[in-house]
């Protein structure tokens, strides 16, 4: 499998713009499949960046020809978010472990109330004393 460090595709891994930039460079390299996108050597990867990357590469992602290499649980959690929101079958490899399908995670459910006049909650922290 061909492994491509994400740093070769874009200068940072935050914002949709960078996700688009990375995806357009990756498309040119998809003649050899499958491809591993190596996210392990970057300090920060935002969920928006991943979402845009996945959206732009959906035809390849959907056919399982892209694997994301991650090193920490937080990065896999973001992949789970994107998989849940986009209903995309994503695959990843943690460290040197086996390739596995990311478990899609739907956004949590939040309890919602409508109010007429907003009031501070008692447990809210106030200003510094």
């Amino acid at each position, binding site marked *: 499998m061909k492994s491509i460090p994400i740093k070769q595709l874009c200068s940072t891994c935050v914002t949709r713009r960078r996700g688009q930039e990375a995806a357009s460079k990756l498309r040119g390299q998809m003649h050899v499949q499958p491809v591993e996108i190596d996210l392990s050597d970057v300090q920060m990867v935002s969920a928006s960046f991943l979402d845009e990357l996945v959206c732009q590469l959906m035809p390849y992602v959907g056919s399982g020809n892209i694997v994301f290499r991650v090193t920490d649980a937080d990065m896999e959690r973001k992949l789970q978010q*994107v998989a849940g*929101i986009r209903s995309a079958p994503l695959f990843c490899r943690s460290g040197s472990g086996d390739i596995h399908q990311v478990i899609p995670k739907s956004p949590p459910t*939040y309890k919602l109330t409508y109010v007429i006049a*907003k009031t501070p909650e008692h*447990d809210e922290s106030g200003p*510094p004393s």
Partner: protein
Amino acid sequence: MDLTFYNVDQLCSRVNLTHDRPLIDLSDVTFFRPFALVYLGMFLRYHGYHAGRGIGFTVQPPVNDQARAYLAQQNFWERFNFDPASIQGEKLNRFVTSTSLNDIVDIERRPNIAEEIGNEVTAVLRNSAVSVKVSTVAEVMIELVDNFAGHSNRSLAAVAMQYYPKPRQVVIAIGDCGIGIRASLASNPRHGYLAQAPHYKAALDAFEPLVSCKSEGGTGLTIVRDEVANVNGSFVLATGDGYVKMNNRGMIEAGPMAYDLPGVQMEIVFPEEP
């Protein structure tokens, strides 16, 4: 009196904008929460210049020494009573360079602004002894700055960041006086129905996955909500005359603001890790 999300809209609603020099009475204010600072700043900026009226405000400054000094330190009146289209570059540079955790800065819409602000936030937090999850704070800030740059249709926004040692929390606030969430979403035919909906309804929808002005759908505010909930944080967001609030237990509340201020203003609280 603390000026916060809970009363700054009421203060703005009492300002008589038909006067030549409307009065803003801050005499009783002893503490400015970042949301209130940004909201009041956007109120001044919108009515001062964006509406093309050139209003000059008369300000009754805080009697409290600390509160008055705080506004002076932030260049508050000069910052928000100027025309962003005509300000000199040198002066703007002074306003956009963050030096500490307790600064307010202006941000200009340009292609890499979200990354720049994200880098600054990361550097400031890493150089301090604050034990928040830096990557989460930076990512949330990047999403919000990107939202401003992509959706507000305005050239300038403001960001404030504060650290409070007693409640042990980092608080960020960001605001613009652009078109706001409702108009932005309604520009997408799929969400056109929101044009007639209350502002808070549009704001609530904006937190749902794939609800965006873009046809492919977006995830920006969904990510912000989930990342803040993930670190037991909280937020308040105002847009037009509506608001959405999430407390640190993940309970969301929505309703009307007392004042209809264009744009989006938001404050997020990140508690320090134990």
